[in-house]
């Protein structure tokens, strides 16, 4: 069910618009975008929403089916408890009010909808009135997150394989009845970048709490964008178009920008967009009007008499809330509190290395070095297996001068491979910081051997000084096979 009207929440909306402004450069001056997203997330269950057929991606056509999800006469739906529990998890993670809800039938004829109605939720959904805070600090309102069943797949086989061309269609019900949560945001999103940020953050939450595998490429996450524009600073909500089939982060940005620009062009040429469903054409890089029937849809929603209401007890909700893991935002904040930058914190959480980094920092390692290693040197398989205290030890050796940055990087790589501790690896590689005495005599010797370079070093010209500093450092590193500590060399020079 994707046709829920976004109830305008002007208060929350303007707050967000003021707080962020719009993304400049995409629209002519004086215009801003107003975007709401409807994200369909497939829930990570073993079986389907109402039938015992397996919920798994792909497989031979019509192998993940059962009389119930094929809508055979006489069959009845029974709700999958796990799907409800996962939906409540999402509702709580999105700060929604979770409460009594009922199932509704959305009636329409289409070959891949086995009963020719979709079991969804209409005027009494499970989760309402939540919000999602993005890494950038923007707060996006969540209108509702309701449960429903997915449809099957209709493949159009024709002369050119396109819809409406001659030929025929084949219907596969493997996906029919897969549990979905439709998460409907308020029109609080101010541009394509923020839309991507919203989807990425939502995706990381769904994955973190185990509600969905979040695989956009497998259709586990499908995005429809409600796009409209308005003069900057106004609170109005103008005619919106629902852009469907935007199923990669890249196309989300492109589709929203295209559609918003189309609206502005219409307004500036004295016309206006009509409220309609449009489809994003990835190759053509444009949206096209949907081919839905000319007369207005009439879905004849009514409470499904085959199902009873869901009325989650406070105890059940509390139990689910208690079982929620730390959400991406809390995990980023923990690193930021310890001196990490928001970017590095986001990377660490994105690579699920935040727990490792946190432990290393709390074991006394320098936060900045720890997060630098996570960003630059730990984008590798097995990084998550690092022992936090070894990692902390390595960073301490480095900041204590026992290892140069170059050496630390090499040792770290070997720690990931072998799991050995940094001290023994460093020893095995013969990495020992030279004592400053040796280094001093080496520096004096080099200065004696290269008087011209030494002169230019002292010429007072910054450029020369830098170049010569590089020259001497290079010579020393060559002589010491890279074991000298660059910082100390510079001091000596």
């Amino acid at each position, binding site marked *: 069910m994707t046709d829920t009207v976004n109830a305008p929440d002007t208060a929350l909306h303007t707050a967000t618009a003021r707080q962020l402004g719009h993304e400049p450069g995409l629209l002519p001056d004086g215009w801003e975008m107003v975007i709401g997203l409807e994200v369909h997330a497939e829930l990570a269950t073993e079986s389907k929403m109402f039938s015992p057929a397996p919920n798994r991606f792909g497989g031979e056509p019509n192998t993940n089916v059962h*009389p119930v999800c*094929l*809508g*055979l*006469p*006489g*069959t*009845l*739906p*029974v*709700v999958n408890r796990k799907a409800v529990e996962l939906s409540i998890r999402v509702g709580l993670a999105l700060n929604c009010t979770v409460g009594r809800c009922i199932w509704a*039938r959305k*009636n329409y*004829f*289409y*070959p891949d909808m*086995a*009963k*020719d*109605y979709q079991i969804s939720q209409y005027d009494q959904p499970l989760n309402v009135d939540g919000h999602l805070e993005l890494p950038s600090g923007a707060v996006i309102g969540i209108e509702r997150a309701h449960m429903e069943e997915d449809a099957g797949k209709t493949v159009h086989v024709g002369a050119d394989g396109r819809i409406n061309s001659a030929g025929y*269609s084949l*219907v596969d019900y493997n996906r029919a009845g897969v549990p979905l949560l439709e998460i409907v945001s308020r029109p609080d999103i101010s541009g394509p970048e923020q839309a991507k940020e919203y989807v990425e953050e939502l995706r990381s939450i769904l994955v973190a709490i185990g509600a969905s595998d979040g695989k956009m490429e497998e259709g586990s996450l499908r995005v429809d964008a409600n796009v409209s524009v308005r003069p900057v600073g106004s609170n109005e909500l103008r005619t919106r178009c629902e852009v469907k089939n935007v199923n990669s982060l890249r196309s989300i940005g492109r589709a929203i920008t295209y559609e918003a620009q189309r609206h502005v062009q219409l307004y500036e040429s004295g016309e206006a967009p009509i409220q309609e469903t449009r489809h994003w054409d990835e190759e053509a890089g444009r949206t096209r009007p949907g081919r839905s029937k000319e007369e207005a849809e*009439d879905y*004849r*929603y*009514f*409470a499904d*008499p*085959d*199902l*009873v209401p869901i009325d989650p007890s406070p105890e059940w909700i509390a139990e689910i809330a208690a079982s929620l893991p730390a959400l991406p935002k809390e995990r980023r904040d923990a690193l930021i509190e310890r001196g990490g930058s928001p970017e590095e914190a986001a990377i660490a959480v994105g690579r699920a290395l935040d727990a490792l980094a946190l432990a290393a920092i709390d074991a006394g390692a320098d936060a900045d070095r720890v997060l630098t290693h996570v960003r630059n040197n730990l984008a590798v398989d097995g990084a998550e297996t690092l022992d936090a205290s070894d990692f902390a030890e390595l960073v301490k050796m480095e900041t204590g001068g026992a290892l140069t940055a170059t050496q630390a990087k090499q040792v770290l790589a070997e720690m990931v491979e072998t799991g050995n501790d940094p001290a023994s690896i460093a020893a095995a590689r013969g990495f020992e910081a030279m004592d400053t005495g040796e280094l001093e005599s080496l520096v004096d010797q080099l200065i004696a051997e290269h008087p011209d370079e030494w002169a230019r070093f002292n010429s007072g010209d910054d450029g020369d000084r830098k170049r010569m500093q590089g020259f001497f450092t290079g010579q020393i590193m060559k002589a010491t096979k890279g074991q000298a500590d660059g910082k100390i060399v510079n001091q000596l020079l």
Partner: protein
Amino acid sequence: MNSAQSADLDSVIGIAQAVRAGERSAVDVLEQHLARISERDGDIAAFNTVTDDAARQQAGAIDASVQAGETVGPLAGVPIALKDNMCTRGVTTTCSSRILEHWVPPYDATVVERLAAAGAVIVGKTNLDEFAMGSSTENSAFGPTRNPLDTSRVPGGSSGGSAAAVAAGFAAASLGSDTGGSIRQPAALCGLVGMKPTYGAVSRYGLVAFASSLDQIGPFTRTVAESAAIYDVIAGPDPRDSTSIPQPHAAVTTALGEGIDGLRVGVITELSGRGNDAFEPEVTEATVAAAEALSGIGAKVEDVSIPTAVAGLSAYYMIAPAEASSNLARYDGVRYGLREPGPNTASMMAASRTAGFGDEVKRRIMLGTYALSAGYYDAFYGKAQRIRTLMIQEFDRVYEDFDVLLSPTSPCVAFEFGAKADPVTMYYNDVCTIPSNLTGHPAISVPFGTGAHGLPVGVQVLAPMLGEPVMYRVAAALEGMAP
């Protein structure tokens, strides 16, 4: 009829006792019934399908178990017919509709599994008004069923085939489905006992849906005791039906003997037929006579007014078609059933539905589509569902002062074919039975004397939610005193 006869050789209980004791073979019992079918079903047309081969295997297996000294179920060897809207694996299930004429379900309805587990022998699938929409079985796509008591008359409906099969002795008992009276009314018109259980007491899994919030499966039998015996087998929770009542089923057979001394019986003024010329006088009188008979053996009988009861018909003809319009959308020629060609999917679907459904089904689909459509929902479907809540509240209040309620089952005895061609006139047949479907309460029709043309008249006993035990006690008492 009286309960003494429930021990007759041909009765559910008589057959089961004899077969379990090894005094009679299930195969002999079956052949006797199959012989009657081949003899007379040509005239009656109770069956869409006679499953004689499968039945012979079932019966043979029962006899084998008995000989092997294995324990067999309470319905061992009892020949039972099923309304053809209950799914039977490997046996066509047509709903007497062209659109499902050749459909073979891949699974058994829960009630079919329970009957088989109890040792019953399924003799065939019986005719009905298409998708159970009707009160005469004239709406079957395969032609009407005739009333065995007078073949110029209808057996009632929609479960007319199941009623006729028992009345003609083709089966010891049968199952029907009751959405607005489709078990009780044909039972009354064929001189049988017909029972509509509490909503959710019997699983709907495998019952092809007409109106999901009203449909219930129940038994047709010649006597009250047999009805109780069948009900005890088919009732009970089913995890495959979300609307099935989770509490374990409390047996009713044991309650039958308890008598009715001191029970409080209310006669529903609005449904009594008094001063209502839409009711045949004999029907109205039968209810009065039944009430007097009950007070004669110690019941406290009073009239009671239930104003919303008259709203039942209106509410029903909004709710049932609305649910049906959605339940019958799936018959689109894509996955099963009749397909008519068309240039694109939508036109193929429309051509298949147009060719596959009869007029009454089309009428109700369109009525329900209208009742649900934007702009009319609140005035029609929404309002009807609220009236329904009012009815439940009102009946619950009445049941604080009464144990059971009494009314006629049908305003008239069996009528002639074509006598009620006008839809609304036909709909009025269900005025007394519909309230129990809307409230979800149980009700039973018991034969009580005869009316015009010497045809049987049925009296209806209504009881509160899960009130089957007291309902059966009263039904048994009436049966014993029937003229």
